[in-house]
């Protein structure tokens, strides 16, 4: 167990990170992600209000549709990344555990008179991820198999009232399930009773998301990195790019037009030695051009993988980079993310 954002969380279960990772890619893994923040935003113009804090298209969401977006600051950096679901009379937010108090304070400060923020303290969050997730969950709940990626529905699972999202942080098909606290253990036990489901700790959660090319807040994105530098332009709708109207829009729209000076890229080190976060990236003449922000061993890739920021001139696929690991220079090259193909259910 390790302390994580004020919670005691398992890095791994007895099976270990490699086995847990492979199990999730082959069958299904169960993750307790109840440390994440869940909240409700209400108000007459709640979508327009939230759009002043995020570059994602919130007004254009259909009921039950989920958007990945970021809270930006005035300098165009990222305060947190989050999921926003349109729930008819309100928006449902899921934010990072380590940022949630600051996020809620930010919403209150910026939107206090305009929206009502209700922090949900009585619900847990469980993720079921992997190619067998849909088949397993459909054994306990009606209608989950045909749900599309990035859609949410209110569904009873084995009689437990849940908010079921077809989404996740592994690159695999799967669900994130918001469940009342007093039924969360019951739900976890029902799912873990399935032979194809194993419990997965923080260690494999990290290797799975890294292989999927997904950002970890505080590592791959932070208050200094813009969504454009981070390669998250896809999460900013056309209307938002044209209209702006969110914190940091000046920098972000300028970077869309003029290209950012650095970019987040996937990096494949040669050989077997992992390069971890903070490792320095240099060009062939030993000039520093960036840093690794996430790196380690990719169990499905079966070798070292990394992500980091490099000066824009070095961001093209197949560009050769040098990584400094324990004083030695490792050859590596830029690759197109993700490292492992994403298997989302598009219907």
């Amino acid at each position, binding site marked *: 167990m390790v302390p994580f954002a004020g919670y005691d969380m398992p890095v791994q279960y007895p099976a270990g990170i490699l*086995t847990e990772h492979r199990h999730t890619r082959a069958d299904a893994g169960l993750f307790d992600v109840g440390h994440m923040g869940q909240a409700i935003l209400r108000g007459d113009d709640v979508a327009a209000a939230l759009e002043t804090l995020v570059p994602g298209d919130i007004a254009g969401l259909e009921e039950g549709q989920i958007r990945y977006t970021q809270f930006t600051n005035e300098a165009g950096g990222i305060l947190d990344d989050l999921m926003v679901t349109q729930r008819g009379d309100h928006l449902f937010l899921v934010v990072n555990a380590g940022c949630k108090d600051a996020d809620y304070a930010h919403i209150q400060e910026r939107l206090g008179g305009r929206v009502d923020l209700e922090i949900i303290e009585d619900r847990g969050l469980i993720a079921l991820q992997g190619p067998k997730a849909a088949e397993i969950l459909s054994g306990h709940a009606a209608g989950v198999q045909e749900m599309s990626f990035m859609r949410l529905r209110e569904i009873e699972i084995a009689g437990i009232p849940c908010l079921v999202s077809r989404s996740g942080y592994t690159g695999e098909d799967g669900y994130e399930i918001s469940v009342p606290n007093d039924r969360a253990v019951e739900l976890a036990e029902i799912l873990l009773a399935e032979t194809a489901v194993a419990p997965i700790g923080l260690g494999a959660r990290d290797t799975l998301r890294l292989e999927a090319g997904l950002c970890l807040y505080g590592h791959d994105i932070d208050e200094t990195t813009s969504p454009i530098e981070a390669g998250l332009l896809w999460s900013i709708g056309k209307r938002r790019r044209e209209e702006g109207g969110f914190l940091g829009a000046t920098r972000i729209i300028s970077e869309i037009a003029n290209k950012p000076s650095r970019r987040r890229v996937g990096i494949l080190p040669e050989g077997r030695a*992992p390069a*971890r976060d903070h490792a320095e990236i240099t060009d062939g003449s030993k000039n520093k051009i960036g840093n690794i922000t996430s790196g380690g061993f990719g169990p499905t890739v079966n070798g070292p993988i990394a992500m980091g920021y490099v000066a824009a001139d070095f961001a093209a696929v197949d560009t050769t980079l040098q990584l400094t690991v324990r004083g030695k220079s490792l050859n590596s090259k830029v690759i197109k993310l993700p490292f492992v193909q994403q298997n989302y259910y598009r219907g």
Partner: protein
Amino acid sequence: MATVKFTEAHEWISMDGDVGTVGISDYAQAQLGDVVFVEVPDVGAAFKQGEEAAVVESVKAASEVYAPVDGEITEANSALEDNPATVNTDAQGGGWFYKIKVANLGDLDALMDEAAYLAFVETLD
């Protein structure tokens, strides 16, 4: 039976004449979790006691493996490059890292025997 000694940094050294075989303890491999990379020293390299002589990386993190005594490397276990998981499955056997010609055999007296090491490990949990 060969003399096996342990350090507080969880290395073991098994003596055969004046050459010791060095690895990490079973306790250490269990703490590290799945080992995915091992860097062993070059033959001929000399180390002082406590200097970093090898590196072991699990999925979680990189850790240094220190020289338990002063000496010179006579052999490295290159098989670990292709099969680093041997450190998990056989830490105190096939998962050895390197062999070192011990400069001062008296250095070994300061290290723990297995019973003392296991008692030391008990105090860590």
